[in-house]
């Protein structure tokens, strides 16, 4: 067999794989479909040494747009005005991180919660009232656009969460929402596991 024939077979293999992938992606359900071109701005960024990150117990830090910041002061009241003072808009960066106490306070105030995990994981259990915004699914752009078109106050605090620890999905969601103008995005860094650990209310099922 000639060398040229060998390369032709390799090329056929790659083209066949691409064709199978295209058909499979077209036939896939919404939650298993992927856009061919990704838009992950931090795909090549490496966070600082993992050991120091573990020691601080913080989620993965990022560049200025998604930097970890000191959480706001603990809840002191339950009024909406109080929330706007304690969780002010921060137009200079996409998100700020909060802990379970702050997330719980915002939950009690009825603030909007967005769940950035996969929709199947969301269906298995989520914070009551949280909406599913799975960043790794193909329709995330449509969901962000729909939220924007609801005409919500873009300076009102919105809590984003995923699986805690090293999970970055909520930061990725924050970047998408920040790009359309939301200015008070708070990433609940302990995520759903932290919520469950505190025995706070959870609910199961599809869309709230």
């Amino acid at each position, binding site marked *: *067999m000639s060398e040229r024939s*060998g390369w032709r*077979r*390799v090329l056929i*293999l*790659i083209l*066949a*794989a*691409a064709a*199978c*992938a*295209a058909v*499979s*992606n077209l036939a*896939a359900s919404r*939650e*298993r*479909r*992927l*856009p*061919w*071109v*990704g*838009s*992950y*701005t*931090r*795909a*090549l*960024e*490496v*966070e600082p*040494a*993992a*050991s120091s990150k*573990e020691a601080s117990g913080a989620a993965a830090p990022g560049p200025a747009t998604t930097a970890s910041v000191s959480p706001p002061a603990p809840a002191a009241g339950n009024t909406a005005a109080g929330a706007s003072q304690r969780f002010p808009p921060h137009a200079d960066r996409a998100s700020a991180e909060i802990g379970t106490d702050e997330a719980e306070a915002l939950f009690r105030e009825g603030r909007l919660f967005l769940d950035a995990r*996969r929709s199947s994981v969301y269906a298995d259990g989520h914070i009551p009232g949280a909406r599913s915004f*799975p960043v*790794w*699914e*193909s329709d995330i752009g449509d969901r962000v656009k729909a939220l924007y078109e609801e005409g919500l106050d873009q300076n009102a605090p919105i809590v984003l969460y995923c*699986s805690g620890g090293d999970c970055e999905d909520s930061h990725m969601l924050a970047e998408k929402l920040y790009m359309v103008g939301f200015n008070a995005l708070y990433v609940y860094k302990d995520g759903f596991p932290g919520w469950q650990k505190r025995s706070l209310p959870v609910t199961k099922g599809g869309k709230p």
Partner: protein
Amino acid sequence: MAETQPAGHEGREALSFLTHPWLTIRVQIGLGVIFVVAALPKIADPPSFAHMIYNYRLVPGALVNALALVMPWVELLVGLALVLGVWRRQAAAFAGLLLLVFIVAIGANLARGRAVDCGCFDVHSAGKSREELLTEMRWVLIRDTAMLLMVAQVLAASRKPVRPALR
């Protein structure tokens, strides 16, 4: 007194065993099955596999999804080709290339001290600790190196006409 063998006889015998059709067929099918088994969960859930690729922090953001969509199918076709014995040499070479890519990806993250889920046979994060992940990554490097040796065996054997019907 023992009969003296011509120089290089033992080496030729060892090579002859290593490229024996009996061994080659088993190595080839074993390698193929591993690739098929590894491909299926990735094909079933491309977003989770894209997430795994993203976590390696080695692929530009624009290419993450395309890679997550195409690579599992390459793995599947390479695996099937090895199992069925068609285009054996190209399939084995491609398998070797994929394994090299995996080794570099895992090795680079180990060198950077980043613990990542391998995503080799399961695309869902198992919630392992950092230490568990780092240990797993070291084992994956050893496993992939062993698989590279399997690839080398198939490539060496396919240089001679062991099974003309399959070529």
